[in-house]
């Protein structure tokens, strides 16, 4: 993989990003601070993920038109499922592309 100089992430899902204390002898490893990811729908209290709401869905379908994975967006499992159905419905209606050419 990548020469092993730096290791990104400590395996976990990085919920709190709290492994900044790792500053042992192997000086290569520097403390990494990662912002805690929060589910946008939980934080904003959006209960209704609707396939007609383009403004809400578009940030989760970046250029390649693939659905943004949970590990990047931080969406919780329940909301990612709802998001998925909404995006798939919107795709059927040609509101969101399946692929980017």
């Amino acid at each position: 993989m990548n020469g092993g100089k730096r290791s990104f992430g400590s395996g976990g899902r990085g919920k709190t990003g709290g492994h900044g204390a790792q500053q042992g002898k192997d000086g290569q490893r520097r403390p990494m601070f990662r912002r805690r990811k929060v589910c946008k729908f939980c934080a904003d209290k959006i209960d209704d993920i609707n396939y007609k709401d383009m403004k809400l869905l578009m940030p989760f379908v970046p250029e390649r038109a693939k659905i943004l994975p949970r590990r990047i967006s931080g969406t919780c499992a329940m909301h990612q499922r709802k998001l998925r159905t909404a995006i798939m419905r919107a795709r059927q209606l040609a509101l969101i592309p399946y692929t980017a050419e």
Partner: protein
Amino acid sequence: MKRKYELVYVVSPEATDAQISDLHTQVEQITQRLGGTIEKTDNWGRRKLAYEIGPHKEGTYVLETIDGGGDVMKEIDRRLKVSDLVIRHLVVRIDEEQSVIDRTRTRRTENVRRRRVARGLPPDRQPGEGQRGDVDDDRDDRFDLPEGMDR
């Protein structure tokens, strides 16, 4: 059994306004014949398609909310499939999802109120309440219960 459906159909851009309203009356007739009602119609107008469907790059979107049984939607679905003018359509049942949404909303407002009372605060957020309300889940102003629904 009462059910609620949402129907969106995309009409070919070549269709005239008369043809589009004709399509709407067709849907209306089927619904009425099978004992349903159209609750709401919404024409989104012409918009660009996210991908080409056959020769088309644009389409006119029409949204209908229909109250009625499954046989209504079955018949409408069949008719729209046959129609040449309709290039895409989608039927979604919405009553179940809506009830789930309503339930989570009321549960949340109730929880917030209960917690506020437990902390010795009035159940509703007061104007000018400090920052605390902005960070924790006291921010319930979006889904306040209507007045007179005090517990």
